């Protein structure tokens, strides 16, 4: 499973658990804060991904960057995958 598919699957799983209303068409261009995730939801997503993938890229970046789109978010996880 690609990183993008893995992340989208987890977003959908969290949304189903917590009753978040997430846009149906999640793609690289989706703006994260307009996807139905608020910053608390985004924080929960990062925590869940850390459980699954065993890393949190936001603590590893030399040049910190906060992604605007899902594409940028996926790219950050791909960059730090070992």
């Amino acid at each position, binding site marked *: 499973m690609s990183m993008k598919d893995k992340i989208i699957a987890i977003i959908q799983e969290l949304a189903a*658990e917590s009753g978040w209303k997430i846009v149906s068409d999640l793609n690289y261009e989706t703006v994260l*804060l307009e996807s139905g995730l608020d*910053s*608390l939801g985004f*924080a929960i997503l990062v925590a869940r991904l850390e459980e699954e993938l065993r890393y949190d890229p936001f603590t590893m*970046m030399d*040049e*910190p960057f906060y992604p*605007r789109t899902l594409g940028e978010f996926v790219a950050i996880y791909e960059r730090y995958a070992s």
Partner: protein
Amino acid sequence: MKAETLSGIVGSLCGDHSVVATPSVVCSVGKLLEHADELYRRSSVTTASRVALSGLSALSLMTGLVAFDGKVEAMLLLPVALDEATFDRLIASAGCTHLMDADGIRTLPNCLAGDTEFNVEGTQWLLATSGTTGTPKLICHTLASITRSVKRDRTKGAHFVWGLLYETSRFAGLQVVLQALFSGSLLIASESSEFDSQIEAFVRHGVNALSATPSLWRKMLMDARIKACPLRQITLGGEIADQQILDALRRSFPAARIVHIYASTEAGVAFSVNDCCAGFPAAWLRSEHSPIPLRIRDDGHLLIKPAKLPDGQEIARRLDADGYLDTTDIVYVEGDRVFFSGRASGAINVGGNKVIPEFVEQHLRCVDGVLDVHVFGKKNSIIGQLVAVKVVARSGVDTALLRGAIIGYCKVHLEKWQIPGVIFFVAELKESMAGKRERVV
């Protein structure tokens, strides 16, 4: 010497100078003073009155503060979203005689003397601590104590446009409002607390000074519209500022002065750090260039000794023999820096919102299928900390269904930030060596 008053400060600014802009109105010094005067004359307050201010827009609250500071005995600033019982208890505890809300000001029937006594010069500014235990306490400031670290340089201030993101009736929001008033800067206050309209207003008015929690700054950087604001002053507070957010802000706004402040409702602004590094210099513990006397107690508690502290029992009981205040924040030294690791009480800070673990545990124990729980703060790179919980399920219970039941229950009974974002199912809960369960991971 007679204490300074807010109307005196505002009155010393030029009358046609704009002090605050909302989407619907731009208010000048002259107008603000006129509205405040009208409010005062209409209100029938005396020097013995104690006025509660509740549910007011930023502009109305500013009008109230200008109208009553120096003219009444006390002003109680009630935060929004208080439950009715706490609201009544705080009004009674402060002995309020009047209430000013969105409908205007009125005398309170059956008012009794409050149960708190404060001995200060000038009008008392009573603020509620952000206790989520159900018992917020009253802290008594004065205009002097609450503006201790506010800059008064009007030549510099004239070039600043401050944006207001915080709730005005709390300490952090008041700091922004008073900073703008004292230095003659324009304040942009959105009428809505909705993030989108706030950011739109900041961009439209060219806000160049902004104070927010690290979590809110991360959100603003994700949103990216804030980059259109020519920020020159960036203030972080209310949560631990990590190196990542400081670096990200420096990259996005290379020309800005970036300051993280260490403050609380109880102690006011204790100190600020402007070297763009997380924590604060360990040299300050040895009094080298230290802004205030600081110590670390054997158990890791940070102790501080500000020049002036609010009056009252709540503060007095937290002072040691040398007059140092126990901040109940836990710190550790690493190399030449001192870093914050969390609250001694185990309180969890979710993006600036305080969550008491025991409170969440009590609720979770009500969920059918839960045998035992342990709530703790899990460090999070986006929002500071998340509420996490270890759950021991009753035998035979399907944990996937129980997870859904827990979230469903929490959504009805808890605030959004109190709901566990991370749920672990475990066979048993381990106690630490001291017999206590660790509250921070």
